[in-house]
């Protein structure tokens, strides 16, 4: 089936389509994680363990952000099309990486019908997947907001959607890059900033946002044609009588409680549930004002949440860090897969969380199945309670005298997408085992707003690794130590390969060998890698695509 036909069918077929098991469209990469399950496992197998040593550069395209990107020069980037300008700011802010220079390409890239759709803060491009030719470039005049990254675009038919740091959802015509509309999706005065990739499910554009002050989190659903709001789910109680209010010290605390939705969720067509993670409570580094007692777990912060995609109504939730005091948000990808668990077939969701623990849940009911610590270093909790939740050790909170805690603020893992290989039943995760001294900077909890009140000094690391987690036991099948200090996400393929950023500037293809440690077969040193590798097939050829230092790198077999 041609990709175009398949994509057109997505909005209409999903409620009944068994797409999670098979992946959405093996040739294309039509949504944030390639498919709705967030497994980042491709069934493509043209590139495999026997031939990956011959993988070679197909093309490289350096992109330039901002209004003048198309002009180029004889010593600069090749000329591209002039930027199509959008945005509401009368005096747009100047922001290197957004208004000029090299963009931070840390998001997913869509590939539909041979065209790549690439985004970075305030910028979007359409690029020919065969040779990197830029078809159009759209630039958004920004009024500000935190320009930390952009996780990618969503697509519905010929229409694209992406978010801007100053809190707009922008829809473009994929053929021309012309703007169709823009809608303000969060209140800029409350210091929201929007980085996440929207996800299209049926006739819904699902869009989260972020905030580093202490505004309430939410997920919204918009009409793909008009941009009209369909529903809005707050991730904290906003009114008297709201469920979960009893888990907060006061309504005021709840309304400033955070729980931002800043990473895309997964979708289960069988149950029509959109399953996503929520961010930390605020103030992040003290529980005194929001959770003075044990029953104050601060719902639905640090939780995996399942909503009915048509109504936005809560189906279930599971909180991974009750009453969090370390910024252990649970926004990491909830990965959907089916398999046996304790002798029974189960439909499951698995999350390797920022707090160093991995959770397996029944994705239909939210029933907890398994908790395991996948970071040896994580030391902020001493026990796990009857619900499978790690119980915070108050001695490892931020203290005036300093507490030695792992993970550091970056977490055991973070936004970097994991990968699940259905043939091995293993979830592959980039694990950081870094320690920091956590110092409380003010004894008055009222002074601790948002992410304030904490000084965190990194004092050492056991290293960064790729780990393979067995979902049935939570145990590590293997742990492969990387020489570098960071990862940006993983990809597995039916060719028995795991593609990873080694943190030292190389994209590496590893041979997966079941429960034995992987073996690096191929690498290419391309510089500081910025996103998770992807794969797709165009013109009969399988490509591997990754970004580094503001450029796209496409590899294939020659």
């Amino acid at each position, binding site marked *: 089936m041609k990709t175009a036909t398949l994509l057109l069918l997505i909005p209409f077929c999903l409620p009944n389509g068994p797409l999670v098991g098979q992946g959405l469209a093996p040739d294309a990469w039509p949504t944030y994680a390639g498919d709705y399950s967030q497994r980042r496992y491709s069934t493509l197998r043209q590139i495999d363990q026997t031939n990956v040593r011959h993988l070679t550069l197909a093309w490289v395209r350096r992109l330039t952000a901002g209004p003048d990107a198309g002009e180029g020069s004889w010593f600069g980037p090749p000329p591209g099309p002039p930027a199509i300008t959008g945005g509401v700011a009368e005096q747009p802010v*100047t*922001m*290197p990486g957004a208004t000029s220079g090299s963009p931070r390409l840390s998001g997913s890239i869509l590939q539909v019908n041979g065209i790549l759709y690439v985004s970075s803060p305030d910028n979007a491009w359409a690029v020919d997947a065969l040779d990197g030719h830029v078809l159009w470039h759209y630039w958004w005049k920004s009024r*500000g907001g*935190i*320009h*930390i*990254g952009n996780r990618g675009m969503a697509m519905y038919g010929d229409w694209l959607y992406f978010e801007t740091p100053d809190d707009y959802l922008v829809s473009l015509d994929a053929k021309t890059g012309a703007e169709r509309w823009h809608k303000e999706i969060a*209140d800029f*005065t*409350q*210091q929201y900033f929007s*980085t996440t990739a929207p996800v299209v499910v049926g006739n819904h554009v699902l869009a989260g946002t*972020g905030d*580093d*002050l*202490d505004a309430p989190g939410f997920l919204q659903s918009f009409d793909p044609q008009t941009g009209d709001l369909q529903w809005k789910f707050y991730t904290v109680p906003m009114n008297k009588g709201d469920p979960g209010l009893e888990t907060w010290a006061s309504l*005021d605390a709840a309304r400033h409680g*955070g729980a931002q939705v*800043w990473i895309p969720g997964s979708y289960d067509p069988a149950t029509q549930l959109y399953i996503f993670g929520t*961010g930390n409570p605020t103030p*992040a580094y003290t529980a005194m*004002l929001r959770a003075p007692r044990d029953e104050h777990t601060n719902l639905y912060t640090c939780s995996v949440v399942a909503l009915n995609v048509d109504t936005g109504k809560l189906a279930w939730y599971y909180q991974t860090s009750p009453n969090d005091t370390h910024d252990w948000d649970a926004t990491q990808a909830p990965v959907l897969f089916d398999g046996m668990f304790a002798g029974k077939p189960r439909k499951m969701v698995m999350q390797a969380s920022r707090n160093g623990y991995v959770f397996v849940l029944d994705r239909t009911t939210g029933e907890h199945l398994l908790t395991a610590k996948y970071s040896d*270093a994580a030391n902020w909790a001493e026990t796990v309670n009857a619900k499978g939740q790690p119980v915070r050790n108050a001695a490892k909170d931020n203290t*005036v*005298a*300093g*507490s*030695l805690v*792992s993970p550091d*603020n970056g*977490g055991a893992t*973070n*936004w970097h997408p994991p990968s699940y290989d259905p043939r091995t039943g293993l979830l592959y995760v980039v694990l950081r085992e870094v*320690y920091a001294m956590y*110092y409380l*900077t*003010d*004894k008055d909890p*009222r*002074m601790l*707003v948002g*992410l*304030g*009140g904490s*000084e965190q*000094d*990194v*004092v*050492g*690391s*056991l290293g960064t690794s790729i780990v393979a987690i067995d979902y049935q036991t939570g145990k590590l099948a293997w742990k492969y130590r990387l*020489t*570098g200090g960071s990862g940006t996400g993983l990809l597995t393929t039916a060719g028995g390969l795991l593609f990873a950023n*080694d943190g*030292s500037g190389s994209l*590496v293809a590893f041979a997966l060998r079941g429960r034995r440690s992987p073996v*690096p077969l191929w*690498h290419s*040193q391309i510089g500081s890698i910025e996103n998770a590798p992807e794969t797709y097939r165009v013109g009969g050829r399988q490509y591997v695509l990754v970004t580094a230092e503001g450029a796209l790198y496409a590899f294939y077999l020659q």
Partner: protein
Amino acid sequence: MHSRRRFRSLGTVIAAFAVTMCAPPSPAQAPPRAPDYPVRPPAPPEQVAHGQQVFRSNCSFCHGSDGRGGETGPNLVRAQLVLADQQGELITPIVQNGLPAQGMPKFTLSAADIVAIAAWLHSQPLSDRGTPSTLDILVGNAKAGEAYFNGAGHCAQCHAVTGDLAGIGARYEPKMIQNLIVSGGGGRSFGRRPAGAAGPKVPPTTVTVTLPSGQTTTGDLDHISAFVVALREPDGRYRSFARHDSVPKVVVTNPLQWHIDRLPRWRDADIHDLTAYLVTLK
């Protein structure tokens, strides 16, 4: 929240950051980046002072003398309405009409007084995110720290209070000493350093590369990946070697390995006691 450590661009934090972390700007430097969120033009100091005075007489009973919340009233400095307000236009009707449902009475204050209150509220810093602690971190017992240094901690195996650690209490502030106890220092700038304070000299990580021929090369590690190892020989010459599987043989020696191995085993109380001891070495 989002992963990258960064400083918030809230006015006061920027100022503190600029003062503590940056050298005086030179013309060659790029202009400071724009704040993430628009900054209100500062109100005249006398208006801010008047606003504070009016607030303390009328509002602090419920909202606290600093506006950050009291027994009954919420924190106003970062209240959603105050954040959205520019110059009192949203705050004024609340003050004049009250919020009966939430138990807030109305106040008969002049328009100028309310605008002054708004100016004072807007002058208050929102969050100290990214600001280092200035609190006294010393809680440990120096005697216990000394005993730990010479006994259970085995610190004396590598360090001497009359040698490398002599006078350390005069060289660094206590928090940095504490961070150094855990990190051991090193070239990776683990631990926050005050401007101008050089870290302790730590021997470099070294590497020995043994080729299949048996020829060995030893030097200071420059960088290493699964595919390349690079070093500086004692005479400063740079050498790099391709790595394939386990060829050539590579042995890395990190003088701080003890500190890394120690990370999972520290008790915070021992760290605090050691800090209390080392700060006495002046």
